[in-house]
């Protein structure tokens, strides 16, 4: 544990014990527990490292004026401590455990009514039950708390019961957590085994009693809760106990299903349905779903007569359509969302699994004609949602390879389905002017997916225009990605046109959107890779890098206030350093590279360098001629990388910072009278 934290903790404990309800933020107790938990998990004995905790516990639990929130925190802290067997013994000997885990004690104090005390009690007890000694604290009220008026308490009780049962699970003779512990610590094994059996019996008996057709609202609540517990248990228990549980409850479950009580349908489904098992063959399901979808859209020709009732309820039902399409997507074995969106998704998924589209087949052709009509119509729908889904669909098709017929070459799916770019390209082009930026972005993305190189070259100016003029980040992000896709599909090592590259990089780096900047750096990375791979010499490589403005992009990224941008730039600069500055300086190539880099550095935007000198790299000055290796070395990249790789709030969200905040708040709280009107009110954000 951090020494500074250890030194602050006693005072923090004092503040907490005396705080009442005046804590500065509702998250601090949780965060303190997080910290203690992390320490315990790292194997530290908390009581040994911070003896003040024992005093704190004793002060809080014996003070009748302690705030419920602090008491609840203390109960959970005790549980955390007691989870370690050594600390358990210390706490047991100081009689703390017997006192705090007796719910009667809290009832007598009139505090049991407060749900946060009950939650603290359950959770404290739960963490205590990490070793067999803890089992002796298994208490009957847990079973009653399962139907507590507070949802949180009831749920915590359910979790707790599941935890206990799993803990006592007699897997195979040798391997249970309890029996293992017994082997390691043979003291009183009989007693512990008895504890275990007693606990399992008590819970099974309870399950059996609690399930059945409910005869009132209290019983209904109990049934619902117990079904939830059962679902939890059946999901986690292993064979002997799993089977035993099933045996115990099967009759009650059957009875409940037969009683058809609507309030129990959902929890019963949770217990009965196993999500992974399909009830019948996929083909049957698919044809079933398809006829259901036909009925939904009003086509009743394929179905048998006599179910007009069904028709009335199902025709036009968006809910049924959504479910059916979802099922269809699921059956195609991929996870799968408004009806059109889902239809597109389902279609894309199905295309990817059933490859063959036979253009010589008449019905297939008719079907395709329909699709072209639908896509054209939907591309100019009033709702941006529909237009966007249509653009996304075109993008997905563009990315998908299908084989038209055995003899023909593979092509993208949009070509096969929609007759290629003569149909889709005008739609996508038009969508570039869409008033909704989401749609513009999807159209750009779809264009990037079409692999028609010649067309992409033509589209580049339009894309550049979007990058410089579009007011919204989504479209600009997509443009940079467009260039990435284009350049990476290019087989030659020199990108198509250099002026275009330079303007994309400089515009991208100066963008207001952090993701545009990150994507721009991804583009720079691609160029970096190509430069060094293609030329085999650093000279030509770095030449082109300077020309393209890759280096300035990296340097401006390094000082960006958006962390992901700075981090990416830092990593790339390190890669660059590793590539152009090998350990031995004798290499002629390196000096060439250095000379080029010098030129580059001079050409760099003065502001980015001024920024650097401020950031501490004062050795670099733009009027001085320095080698690129020296320049890269002077940026302190390794230190920067270490900082940037950590969370942006790692200093202010640290345990030390938390302890300091608690202490500062307590002193400012006592002086708050001096500054009326300065009270910080918790409100919205």
């Amino acid at each position, binding site marked *: 544990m951090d020494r500074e934290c250890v030194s602050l903790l006693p005072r923090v404990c004092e503040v907490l014990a005396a705080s009442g*309800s005046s804590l*500065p*933020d*509702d*998250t*601090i107790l*949780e*965060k303190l527990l997080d910290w203690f938990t992390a320490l315990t998990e790292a194997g530290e004995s908390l009581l040994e490292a911070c003896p003040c905790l024992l005093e704190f516990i004793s002060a809080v639990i014996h003070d009748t004026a302690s705030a419920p929130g602090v008491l609840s925190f203390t109960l959970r802290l005790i549980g955390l401590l007691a989870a370690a067997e050594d600390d358990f013994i210390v706490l047991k000997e100081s009689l703390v455990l017997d006192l705090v885990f007796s719910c009667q004690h809290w009832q007598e104090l009139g505090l049991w009514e407060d749900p*946060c005390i009950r939650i603290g009690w359950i959770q404290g007890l739960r963490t205590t039950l990490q070793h067999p000694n803890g089992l002796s604290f298994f208490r009957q009220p847990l079973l009653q708390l399962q139907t507590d*008026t*507070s*949802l*949180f*308490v009831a*749920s915590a009780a359910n979790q707790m019961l599941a935890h206990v049962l799993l803990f006592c699970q007699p897997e195979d003779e040798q391997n249970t957590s309890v029996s293992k512990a017994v082997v390691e610590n043979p003291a009183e094994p009989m007693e512990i085994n008895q504890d275990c059996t007693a606990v399992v019996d008590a819970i099974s008996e309870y399950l059996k009693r609690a399930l059945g057709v409910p005869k009132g609202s209290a019983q209904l609540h109990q049934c619902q809760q117990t079904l*939830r517990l059962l*679902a939890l248990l059946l999901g986690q228990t292993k064979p002997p106990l799993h089977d035993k549980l099933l045996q115990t409850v099967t009759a009650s479950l059957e009875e409940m299903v037969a009683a058809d009580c609507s309030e129990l349908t*959902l929890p019963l*489904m*949770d217990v009965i349905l196993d*999500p992974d098992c399909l009830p019948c063959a996929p083909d049957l399901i698919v044809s079933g779903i398809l006829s259901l979808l036909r009925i939904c859209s009003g086509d009743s020709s394929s179905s048998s007569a006599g179910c007009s009732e069904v028709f009335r309820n199902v025709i036009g039902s968006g809910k049924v359509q*959504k479910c059916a399409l979802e099922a269809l997507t699921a059956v195609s074995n991929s996870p799968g*969302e*408004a009806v059109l*969106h889902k239809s597109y998704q389902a279609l894309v998924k199905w295309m990817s699994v059933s490859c063959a589209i036979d253009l010589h087949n008449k019905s297939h052709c008719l079907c395709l004609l329909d699709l072209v009509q639908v896509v054209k119509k939907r591309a100019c729908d009033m709702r941006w*949602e529909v237009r*966007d889904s249509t653009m996304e669909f075109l993008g997905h098709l563009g990315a998908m390879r299908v084989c038209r017929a055995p003899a023909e070459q593979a092509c993208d799916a949009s070509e096969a389905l929609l007759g290629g770019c003569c149909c889709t390209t005008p739609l996508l082009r038009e969508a570039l002017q869409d008033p909704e930026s989401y749609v513009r972005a999807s159209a750009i993305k779809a264009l990037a997916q079409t692999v028609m190189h010649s067309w992409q070259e033509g589209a580049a100016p339009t894309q550049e225009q979007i990058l410089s003029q579009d*007011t*919204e*980040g*989504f479209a600009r*992000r997509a443009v940079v990605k467009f260039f990435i896709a284009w350049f990476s599909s290019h087989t030659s090592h020199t990108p198509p046109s250099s002026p275009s590259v330079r303007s994309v990089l400089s515009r991208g780096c100066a963008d*207001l*959107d*952090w*993701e545009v900047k990150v994507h721009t750096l991804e583009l720079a990375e691609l160029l970096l890779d190509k430069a060094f791979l293609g030329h085999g010499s650093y000279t030509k490589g770095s030449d082109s890098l300077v020309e393209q403005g890759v280096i300035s992009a990296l340097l401006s990224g390094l000082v960006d*206030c*958006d*962390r992901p941008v700075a981090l990416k730039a830092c990593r790339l600069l390190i890669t660059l350093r590793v590539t152009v500055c090998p350990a031995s300086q004798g290499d002629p190539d390196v000096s060439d590279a250095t000379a080029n880099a010098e030129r580059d550095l001079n050409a760099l935007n003065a*502001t980015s360098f001024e920024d650097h000198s401020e950031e501490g790299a004062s050795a670099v000055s733009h009027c001085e001629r320095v080698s690129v290796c020296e320049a890269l070395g002077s940026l302190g990249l390794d230190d920067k990388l270490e*900082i940037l*790789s950590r*969370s*942006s*709030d790692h*200093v*202010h*969200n640290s345990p030390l*910072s*938390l302890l*300091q*905040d608690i202490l*500062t708040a307590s002193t*400012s709280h006592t002086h708050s009278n001096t500054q009326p009107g300065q009270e*910080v*009110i*918790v*409100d*919205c*954000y």
Partner: protein
Amino acid sequence: MPEIKVTPLGAGQDVGRSCILVSIGGKNIMLDCGMHMGYNDDRRFPDFSYITQNGRLTDFLDCLIISHFHLDHCGALPYMSEMVGYDGPIYMTHPTKAICPILLEDFRKITVDKKGETNFFTSQMIKDCMKKVIPLNLHQTVQVDDELEIKAYYAGHVLGAAMVHIKVGSESVVYTGDYNMTPDRHLGAAWIDKCRPDILISESTYATTIRDSKRCRERDFLKKVHESIERGGKVLIPVFALGRAQELCILLETFWERMNLKAPIYFSTGLTEKANHYYKLFITWTNQKIRKTFVQRNMFEFKHIKAFDRSYADNPGPMVVFATPGMLHAGQSLQIFKKWAGNEKNMVIMPGYCVQGTIGHKILNGQRKLEMEGRATLDVKLQVEYMSFSAHADAKGIMQLIRMAEPRNMLLVHGEAVKMEFLKGKIEQEFSIDCYMPANGETTTVTTNPSVPVDISLNLLKREMALGGPLPDPKKPRTMHGTLIMKENSLKLVSSEQALKELGLNEHQLRFTCHVQLQDPHSDADTLHRIYTHLKSVLKGYTIQHLPDGTVIVESIVIKVSSSAEDSNTKVLLLSWSYQVKTWTLFLERFTLIYNGVLPGG
């Protein structure tokens, strides 16, 4: 009795994040789906496993309604719809739907800045989620399904904020979200119909405060900014992309114009620009003044406020900069703060609340020496000011809304327990209605008396008037007699004659008989006579006849006496009456009299 249940998963006795489950008339509705900024893990989102396990949220919930775009009300939306898998209808107003993704993107950025963040939604998820949203218009009733309907009302607070009236049959609930009962610089005041909901669920952020007039706070703010600028200082105002930033911009813009100030004002981010675009687009949602002046000049076309470039931070001389994020977590606002913190001429104005774990929280607590990354420390010499510009109803405003809506019950959320307790007392005292304040996870159950509307025939009403004087007075209820008939899904109260006519039925009379045994040694005729005399003495004003065939008749009741076959002392009384409610009650009352009267007399 039908019940309405309200369970907060968030905002129950706290101001963390709003997420409230309402069960009404068999429908389950989720109100708001907010996130808590104070956590970096799943605890920032509501835990839906309390409601259903295995992600069956769509099966359980009938709809989700988002009140406004603040993250503590909508921040968990993509999590719920794209990660937990809720696929049912989501409702919010048009402006909220447009602005929500901006704030979600803004927050996603802060999150990406923090390493070790797990389980957070992507840009694609935000879009996919927004596609599922069904936009609401103010005062337009939207039918969620055959039974459930919702209607949005103007709530002030922020652009697009709405209160919502949820109705199933005759039961209804109003949820306010965050609201403001006094108009501010860019928004109007909340308003609702006298809709008399069964429960009014109201926020209570300022439950105990009577806020000083907004003008005072504005004057104060302008004074502070002005002083700082005058002495050559720079002013940093950390904000979230939308809401307060716009209000403060209008404030500064008009002040700059009036005072003819030259110091530049900047926005640090493209987001705010986009936000301004939405304020222009949704001008009808702003207040009257802005709408009026719109014809000459759009309030959101700022003359003095320009886009910021990071190189400007080092420019000499005074300036005002709005920068995101609002709690000085990271990014632009933090970078500028670090640059300016060392100069006592500068100032930072925090216009809202900051969670623990942020620099904003630290400086508001009065910390002056901040530890920074890379073991550096930062001396905070600049002036730190806190000015809450959030637009919530204060205690007076909340009472005003209760008067407007006239709820039968009140339920407080989105406030601190101690303050709620105080307001609860006030409400119960002033309005004589029950006021609830459930904690998170606790369920409040309110039983409702469903009122069923019934038409009444004019003839019946006239007849009743003739019988009982003037027309019914709501303060003096009185019983009316008629037949309730249901025709074409509507209920009608008519006279029984008319009911028979309308339904084409014939009149039948039911007679009921029963036998009662008595111990009486007299002869049958004597017993009957004794009964006759007794009835005559107790039932004054009734026609009682003793007929020669051995029958006593009281109104429609016929009484005969016979002896039991086994025991002549046991007399069997045959009672027979026609079914008329009045007679029946009379009979029961009187028979008790007979029974008690005859026997003791023996």
